């Protein structure tokens, strides 16, 4: 699996964002934040410089998880909540590919919450980008793990009454090596964070505020609420955790950079199947 891919052996011409678009028409509502994420991702990949066939976008289920088909990259659109596991299997056996996992807050924090924790802990070298709209968009508006306690919905009249959890603090605690927050309405800033996240060794977690204009129209206000983070990215987990627990969730930028080495590829010894089979032979 260590074949060198084309880009490493041939000279490749500079790429443009449009080279990463499949041209397929997104199913997203007009004004959905996910358009901004798609555009930022295309820009980032063009700048990153690896051609579309060396990139694999893995996603689960949700409006946001539809993204892979809108790019010209390889992709895997799996079942709800399991994208990180798919990406882990792929990256561990094809480490030379650029593997990026994509999804929503329901997909990643609720049904896929266990995989999120363990992907952080495993620290496989990949970027995980979550489009957080604090709602289940695809199923038409139910509260997610990041929804405010008093947000009124059909399924939870008057609000769910639960404190939203903090995915950034969780990621830091579980061992993610890079934690950042971006905003769908700031494609250039977001593209920069994507580029840095892809380049950072180990598991990079990028939480993107991506408004669901249909079920959370009030999120249109986010563009007035976000700001570049005033604090500098911490490199120790205690400080980083304290910072993300104390802030209001609208600081954009890198909030934690770790130095943990990603999981290594185990060294293989030169051995054949016949050597292995010898253990079963009887006697002598």
């Amino acid at each position: 699996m260590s074949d060198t891919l084309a880009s490493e052996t041939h000279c490749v011409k500079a790429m443009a964002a449009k080279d990463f678009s499949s041209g397929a028409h997104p199913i997203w509502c007009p004004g959905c934040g996910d358009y901004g994420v798609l555009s930022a991702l295309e820009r980032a990949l063009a700048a990153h410089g690896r051609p579309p066939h060396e990139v694999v976008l893995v996603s689960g289920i949700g409006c946001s998880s539809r993204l892979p088909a809108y790019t010209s990259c390889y992709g895997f659109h799996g079942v709800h909540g399991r994208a990180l596991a798919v990406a882990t299997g792929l990256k561990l056996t094809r480490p030379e590919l650029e593997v990026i996992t994509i999804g929503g807050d329901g997909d990643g924090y609720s049904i896929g919450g266990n995989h999120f924790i363990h992907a952080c802990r495993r620290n496989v070298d990949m970027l995980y980008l979550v489009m957080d709209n604090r709602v289940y968009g695809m199923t038409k508006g139910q509260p997610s793990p990041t929804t405010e306690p008093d947000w009124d919905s059909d399924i939870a009249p008057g609000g769910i009454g639960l404190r939203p959890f903090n995915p950034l603090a969780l990621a830091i605690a579980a061992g993610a090596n890079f934690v950042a927050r971006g905003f769908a309405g700031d494609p250039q800033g977001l593209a920069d964070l994507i580029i840095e996240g892809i380049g950072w060794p180990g598991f990079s977690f990028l939480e993107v505020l991506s408004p669901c204009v249909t079920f959370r129209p009030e999120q249109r206000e986010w563009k007035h609420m976000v700001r570049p983070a005033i604090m500098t990215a911490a490199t120790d987990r205690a400080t980083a955790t304290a910072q993300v627990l104390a802030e209001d969730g609208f600081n954009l930028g890198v909030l934690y950079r770790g130095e943990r080495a990603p999981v290594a590829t185990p060294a293989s010894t030169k051995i054949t199947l016949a050597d292995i089979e010898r253990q079963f032979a009887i006697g002598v």
Partner: protein
Amino acid sequence: MARESLSVVFAGSGGSGAMTAGNVFLRAAANAGYYGLMSQLFGPQVRGGESAALVQISTIPIEAQPDCFDIFVALDWDKVEQFAVEIPLDENSVILADKEAGAMPPSIAKSKAREIDLPMSDPDLTRLEKALRGRHINIFAAAAVAALAGLSEWNVGSALQAVMGDKSNEVIKANAAAAASGAMAGKKLGLDFKLDRARKADRWLITGNEAIGLGALRGGVRFVGCYPITPATDLVEWLAPELQKLGGRLVLAEDELAAINMVLGSSYGGTPSMTVTSGPGFSLMIETLGLAVAAEIPAVVVDVMRAGPSTGIASKTEQSDINIAIHGTHGDAPRVVLAPTSIADCISTAESAVYIAESLQVPVIVLSDQAFGQTRVVIDPDSKRPKPMRRRINGAPSGAQFKRYAIGFDPVTPMPLPGTPGYQWVAEGLTHSEIGLPASGAGAHVAQINKRAKKLQRFEPGDFWGESWGEGDTVVIAFGSTIGPAREAARRLTAAGHPVRIVGLRLLAPLPFTALASALDGARRIIVIEQNHSAQLYHYLLGQKAIPVSAESVARPGPLPFRSSEIASYVA
């Protein structure tokens, strides 16, 4: 008079070393050229609970537990009685026990087996010394029984060395001394359990779990994602270091949902991949099984069945996952379901599973069970290997837009590896168009459903469908670990002038209609035998019209294995 086979149970409480005794005895017999089989019984404790090693040795291959055991060795009597129903004894059986170990429990005594005193530790030792040295009575007992069977001390010695391989010199010495005195004590018992001469040949000693692991490696599996579950754990524990030596990888996932999704991810990348589990874990994998079907991703899923439903009995066998293996998951989701026909067959069935998954781009389920997985047998290593079949990654027409899920004459369409320029595609679990874009129209849905179905309809299993043994117009259909006792029953009935044919199914889905029909040719009576309460195989075969409505069903739950006498008395 020398005998063809001998069955022995070593039983005792935690720390008595019953399994080690069984392993030493089995290996000593194997060294001498005998075939053999050892099943394991465990109490409910996690560690150090009572256990029993059920060993048979013979001049011919063994695939079933005996109706009754010849010798029962009680290393002690502590809680051993809970195994009574699983260890049939009768008045011809002999119980070897040290009088000092106390009285035989009533559940064992009820068998009317003859009890013979076998002092297992030196009578001159003090109580303390006995407690200290008591550790080696298992080896003493194994050597005593080996002597009864006529196995040489050399064979016992080399077995001891193989089993104790990593122990300190001192321990090995102490055990060798115990073996020497055990052999002496055995000879003095004046019992005749001598076996016929054995024919020496190159043989293997292997468990069903190891055999599946080996077959998977032969088939090219280089990635395993798994989560521990009895009785499948020892399979992956065997695989982990071997995979690594071959440059592959095993990942301990956070749960079975992750395990099977990791497998699909790595398989999508081009690496033949497998997950290994048992009932509860298999249930968790079901949604993703449908994804593998819809997105057409090869994957091997091994289910080492245990008694269910729910957590059931973790350490004991049952054949009750037929329904979930064949039908589990929503929607129309054709997949391949295989069941090895013997422990030896686990190797090539697992290898074939990889080839079928890769060449048809489908999930393949291998139904093994605890009775296969955790039983160690002596086998003739097979020289014939299934013909390798690979995944189609090349040959797709190039052009404007690559049609990963193209509808055409051949339902198996190329799946280029990520990294290949010009063929980018998205593996898609939603109903999709030919290029793999989500689609919700009837046309795409029907076309893709048909494509997946056609892959299996076109699958030509050849000889792989299963096996048929014997003649006769009474036919017993069985699969997996029930085939062994069924064959033994047929052997007896045939010898008694009532020929019985056994049909062992290896390919459960898609059903090999033609091959099965010809295997059933001339049958006047058909009996389907399986180890579950609801007659899952019987109803499946009936529903598929693969057997006539006159066919009979013998179905009962585990965990007790079928005895050949039980099958013979029903069939006769």
